[in-house]
């Protein structure tokens, strides 16, 4: 479902939100499937999981950590935060595709989803920018550029370190796409339905 059929974005804000949220939910499901695919291989290996879990590189972005916090953030600020969160995954997704190629049982499943998420993220960014443009034109361009600590290249790294890094990256992707989807649903109710969904 294109965000703006035929480039025409003159649609009510509610419909724009509905289309963007359909996309953010789809992206979340893709990343959740990707994580589940990967987690199957390590679910029983507590040591591996203990070592794999480390900070998500986007944790430098001050995203609200719960409902009350998210409701305190002005909508236009939250929309710009979402833009940053989505933007910050452009390079890591591309990197993931090259890193996983041929080295994992689940690599085909991960690669196809990573590519699809990369594509859909572009449309999601477009949709969020349309929402900003329609609802908060003065706030457009205030995106907070996350200093995306370049995911260390995994070329030449030993196998276990590489697998640990890939696991944590996919885990963080699922978490961030869940945040994006959740924030957008909160904003829809707040901006379009006056907190009465």
């Amino acid at each position, binding site marked *: 479902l294109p965000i703006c059929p035929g480039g025409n974005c003159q649609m009510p804000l509610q419909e724009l939100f509905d289309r963007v949220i359909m996309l953010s939910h789809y992206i979340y499901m893709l990343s959740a499937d990707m994580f589940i695919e990967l987690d199957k291989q390590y679910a029983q290996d*507590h040591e591996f999981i203990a070592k794999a879990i480390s900070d998500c590189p986007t944790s430098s972005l001050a995203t609200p950590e719960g409902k009350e916090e998210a409701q305190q953030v002005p909508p236009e600020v939250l929309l710009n935060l979402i833009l940053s969160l989505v933007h910050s995954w452009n390079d890591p997704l591309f990197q993931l595709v090259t890193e996983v190629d041929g080295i994992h049982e689940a690599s085909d499943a991960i690669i196809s989803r990573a590519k699809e998420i990369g594509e859909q993220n572009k449309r999601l960014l477009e949709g969020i920018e349309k929402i900003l443009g329609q609802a908060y034109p003065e706030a457009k361009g205030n995106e907070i550029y996350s200093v995306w600590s370049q995911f260390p290249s995994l070329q030449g790294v030993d196998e276990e370190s590489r697998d640990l890094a890939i696991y944590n990256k996919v885990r963080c992707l699922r978490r961030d796409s869940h945040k994006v989807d959740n924030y957008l649903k909160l904003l829809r109710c707040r901006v379009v339905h006056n907190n009465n969904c």
Partner: protein
Amino acid sequence: QSPPGKPEIHKCRSPDKETFTCWWNPGTDGGLPTNYSLTYSKEGEKTTHECPDYKTSGPNSCFFSKQYTSIWKIYVITVNATNQMGSSASDPLYVDVTYIVEPEPPRNLTLEVKQLKDKKTYLWIKWSPPTITDVKTGWFTMEYEIRLKSEEADEWETHFTGQQTHFKVFDLYPGQKYFVQTRCKPDHGYWSRWGQENSIEIPNDFTLKN
């Protein structure tokens, strides 16, 4: 007499994405009085905490109220069993409350036989979201299923209603009694159990009241 067997954390669930509970199986007690404690640490923190509330969710459980619950954060949870002869600890469980959401079932299931203008009879089914989930602000986006079956049927007929909290069923047999249930699922979580069953009989000669 021996040290206690290894306990096992068998489930953690959140009904509302704002609190959560974990339950464990105690394992053998070695023939001695055995104490159980649940400890946890949170992603990005070094400190270990003990369960804040062993009572609210019943025996062999730990309840984390809003104050102790963060989402998008991994909890590393362990249960420890101790008696006079020694102690043992469960395998750690890695939990992010985001992904363990299982709501209560919907409530206020209401059934009514109605008729369209063209006299076509249908069963009008209506329900409400579970009380403790915050659907209004969008923190929770809920989807629903209903199922119904006639008194003689063995199989339920199930319908997914998306985010709608009402549903129409046509082509029911006059004189038949029908049973109906609903359940719900958050956009990122588990289906609730089926809610309270309700029933209604389709009248033989249904005529609209004026």
